[in-house]
Every structure is written in structure tokens, then in C-alpha cells.
């Protein structure tokens, strides 16, 4: 059986314009973004029969009951749910699952949401991705943070391929340039490579400006069958392909830190979409850190191993380049409340509909979205088209 490419469409999206929301509860943001996406689609809440969320730590119960807590809070009664919170790429994975569910007749109209107070949470949010029991007992107590996990991969990439801190910095500089025209972006003032290299060296070789912003925000996406999507006035954005893959979680299991699970998620997504890399007009790549983007470029197959530094240096990521990326400013400059896959997908949809709040490209037809979760652990790729 082949993937039902183009059988499901995204018909509504909404990204919260909030970036700092102290005093709010994340459910307020979830309610706002679900309302916004449904309004964008022209669909009433009672028509929603499938619901997926990645609420992370922003629930009362821990996250196993996120769909129940939020469906109750929103006042919807879905007959299909997906609570697979796999971190950064959660929304991407949930979209791929929703395509299968809609095609299997389990539901017809799905809302996928995320909202969190990444910045102002009332709940403690420890910065490590596994516990200090079980496998994590041989890693976490040595002092691993998320920044350090990605720094390890950046260091090895520099050692093997001669990649320079300047290459990482250029990713951040381009993201900021894209954010300049996005009125909602958290940071919009241009920065230079020197600004990045002169920012605090948090965990070598990563500087402060190699890291994403931390915001209070969220977003939601509405999907339905392509058949039903034809009824709506807005240009539907079709899910052409999706793929997901699992890497390691403990960094001591990642014996080659230049190779990530993106290789497998992208291979499947491209094969299912039936397109080639040359056909991708715009990429929305998870940018928790600059190195996340650099590794994605190689592992998604846009360039070969060790070639990403030169590719970036040649200006390929700019709006005028061969692969414009993160056109809204991305997580590096615009918005990162956690699980940014939601927002990366929303920006891909806005690009394909000609309504990016950042740098709108000239009539793009195919967008690739890639999400990276935890410590280069979970990975999901979507290929969307109009």
C-alpha cells in the first residue's frame, strides 16, 4: 500500500502573536490558537472529530492525559486522538498519523495544537531530556543540558569537516534578517556574524545567539480530507508526504554525531511524496540551535556530508538562494515556545498560500518541514504542496 499522497489537506492555521505571557495558563493559549485555526478554516468547533496535541509539561497531570484535559477545556468530543508528544517534531508526526486516520475513516476533521509558556511557566521545566534513573543515570548526572547535547554534535562536525563557528553563526544571522519583516517576531534587529561570535559562549562551540529564543506562545492546524477541503475558499495545502524516525536519546548511543534520524524521515517523506530535492521551493527547518539546521541540511539530503558549511557560506539559505529557510525568522528569532514543529508547519502553509508574515517568496509550490526533538532524537519530515 502506498502513502495516500495529497489525500489530506491543511485548511486552517494560526500562530499566536504572543511571545511573553506571564500570568497566563498555557490552556488559554491553546484555546486561542484552536479558535484562530478553526476561524481561519471556517470550521465550527463541533465539527472537529479528531484531536491531537503535544502539551508537554503544560498540563495538570503530566502529559499522558493532555488530549483529555484539553478536549475537555476546549469543549470538543473527538472520536480520534493522538497524544504522541515526541518533542520538537510532534505536530509533524501527528499530521502524518492524521493522514492515515482520515484515510482509514477514523475521523474527518482534525485539529492539532500546541501551546506553552516556555518562558514564564509556573511549573518547573528541567533542561534535560531523560531522567537520572535508568539509562540517564550514566549521562544526566555528568551535567548534560540540551545546549550541551547539540554542542557535542557541533564540535564533532567541526573536527571531521572543518566546519567553522562562522558557518553556524550565518544561520542565525539569516534567521534574524528574515525576522526583520515579521511584526510578531520576538527579535527583529539585524545581527552580524561577529555579534553571534561575541555573544556568550554557553557550551562550546555554541554561543547564546546560536540558540533559539524562549517564548510563551503556540499554534494550531486544521486538516481534513482533500475532498472536503475543496469546499473551502482558501487554497488548501496538501500533505504530499510524511515520514518519521527515531534516533538515540542518550548521547553516548550516537556513535556518529554527524548522522541523524532525519536521513530516514526524509527518505520516506520524499519517496511518499514522489518528488526530488530540486522541487522543494522553501524549507522550514527546526532551529533549536544553529547546528540543528546545519545537520538537517546534510541529513535531509540537500547537501552531502560535510558540505553544509560551504552551502551556507554561499548564501543558499537566503530568500534569493537555492533553499530559502525559516522565512518567518524561525525559532532563532521569531518564536520558540517548545515543539516548534507546529510553528514551522504553519509557516510552510502560509508560504504556500502567499501570506507569510516574514519574507514571502514568489509563488512557492512545494515546502519541506523538518522537526528535530530532544537531543537529535526524534525526527519527522513533511512535504506540503499546492
Amino acid at each position, binding site marked *: 500500500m502506498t502513502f495516500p499522497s495529497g489525500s489530506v489537506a491543511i485548511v486552517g492555521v494560526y500562530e499566536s502573536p504572543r511571545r511573553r505571557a506571564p500570568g497566563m495558563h498555557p490552556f488559554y493559549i491553546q484555546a486561542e490558537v484552536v479558535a484562530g485555526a478553526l476561524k481561519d478554516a471556517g470550521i465550527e468547533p463541533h465539527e472537529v472529530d479528531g484531536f491531537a496535541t503535544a502539551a508537554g509539561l503544560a498540563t495538570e497531570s503530566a502529559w499522558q492525559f493532555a488530549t483529555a484535559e484539553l478536549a475537555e477545556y476546549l469543549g470538543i468530543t473527538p472520536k480520534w486522538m493522538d497524544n504522541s508528544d515526541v518533542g520538537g517534531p510532534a505536530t509533524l508526526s501527528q499530521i502524518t498519523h492524521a493522514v492515515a486516520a482520515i484515510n482509514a475513516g477514523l475521523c474527518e476533521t482534525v485539529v492539532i495544537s500546541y501551546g506553552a509558556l516556555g518562558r514564564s511557566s509556573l511549573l518547573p521545566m528541567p533542561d534535560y531530556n531523560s531522567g537520572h534513573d535508568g539509562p540517564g543515570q*550514566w549521562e544526566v*548526572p555528568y551535567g548534560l543540558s540540551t545546549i*550541551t547535547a547539540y554542542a557535542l554534535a557541533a564540535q564533532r562536525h567541526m573536527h571531521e569537516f572543518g566546519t567553522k563557528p562562522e558557518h553556524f553563526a550565518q544561520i542565525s544571522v539569516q534567521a534574524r534578517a528574515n525576522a526583520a519583516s515579521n511584526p510578531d517576531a520576538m527579535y527583529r534587529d539585524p545581527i552580524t556574524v561577529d555579534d553571534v561570535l561575541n555573544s556568550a559562549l554557553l557550551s562550546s562551540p555554541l554561543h547564546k545567539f546560536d540558540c533559539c529564543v524562549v517564548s510563551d506562545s503556540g499554534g494550531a492546524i486544521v486538516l481534513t480530507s482533500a475532498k472536503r477541503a475543496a469546499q473551502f475558499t482558501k487554497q488548501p495545502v496538501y500533505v504530499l508526504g510524511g515520514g518519521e524516525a527515531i534516533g538515540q536519546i*542518550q548521547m553516548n548511543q550516537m556513535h556518529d554525531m554527524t548522522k541523524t534520524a532525519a536521513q530516514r524521515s526524509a527518505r520516506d517523506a520524499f519517496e511518499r511524496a514522489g518528488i526530488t530535492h530540486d522541487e522543494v521551493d522553501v524549507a522550514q527547518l527546526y532551529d533549536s540551535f544553529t547546528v540543528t539546521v546545519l545537520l538537517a541540511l546534510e541529513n535531509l539530503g540537500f547537501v552531502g556530508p560535510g558540505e553544509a558549511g560551504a552551502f551556507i557560506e554561499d548564501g543558499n539559505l537566503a530568500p534569493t538562494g537555492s533553499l530559502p529557510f525559516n522565512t518567518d525568522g524561525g525559532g532563532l528569532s521569531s518564536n520558540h515556545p517548545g515543539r516548534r514543529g507546529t510553528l514551522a508547519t504553519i509557516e510552510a502553509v502560509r508560504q504556500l498560500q502567499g501570506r507569510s508574515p516574514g519574507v514571502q517568496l514568489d509563488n512557492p509550490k512545494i515546502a519541506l518541514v523538518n522537526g528535530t526533538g530532544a537531543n537529535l532524537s526524534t525526527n519527522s519530515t513533511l512535504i506540503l504542496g499546492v
Partner: protein
Amino acid sequence: MTAEKIRLEPLMDDYSKEWWDAAAERKLLIQRSPSSGEVFFYPRWLTPGTLAERPEWVEASGRGTIYTFSVVNFNANPEFREDCPYVFAIVKLEEGPHMTTRIVDIDPDEVRCDMPVEVDFRSLGGETIFPVFRPARSGAAVEGA
């Protein structure tokens, strides 16, 4: 107000405690599949991949090379804030497996990938004795680097 030092110690179970008890006796253990002879780390209850058997403990030589590292100048977690700067690293043991550790007894600016190192056993500020690595004293090249 004086902040009480918080130390994130390994949360051991009865089985993993065998490994930590060995470390306290200055022995670095890895595991081996009895049927294939393949060695691996971190410790598992069943051999990963085949799930066919209980692995056996074997003592590692304690020699290896630095696969990668980061000099940590900032950690938002209060457990590690006072340790900064420290060198967090992944060491490739000469037997093959990678393990997470810290590099000690060296100026952080001098640490390099593929540098030969050898194990030592230290407290990181709490009660647990952790395997850490320092530059190899012999300076001899390590095979399989």
C-alpha cells in the same frame, strides 16, 4: 541566604548499583553478549537488538579517546551551575563503546577531539564516585581511535 548545594546523583536500582559499586572500587565495567561477544555500554538488562540473553559484565581497560566534548560555561540547572566551567565529553573506549563522562586535569582550552585519555574515579561533589577521564599519561596512541 546561602544556597544549599544540590547534587543530581544517579538514581540507582538494584541492578545498576552493581556498576556504580564497581566504579567505587575503581573498576570500569562494560557489558558483553555471551553469544556474539559484542560489547556495549550503557548497561542493559537484556542484550539490545536480540533481546535473547542477559549480558555479562566485563572490565574495560579504561583507555580511550575523546569522541567529542563541550566546555560548559553555562547550565541553567541549579545542580550544575556551580560546576561551570566543566568539560562534558563522550569518550570512545578502546573496546568500542562510547560513554558519557567529564574530562579532568587539563585546561579546558587544551581539550581536543580524538585526544587519548584514561579513566580515573572521582566525586563530582556528592557521594557517588564517577568514572571521569584525564589525558593519557603514557601518551601512547590508542588503537581503534
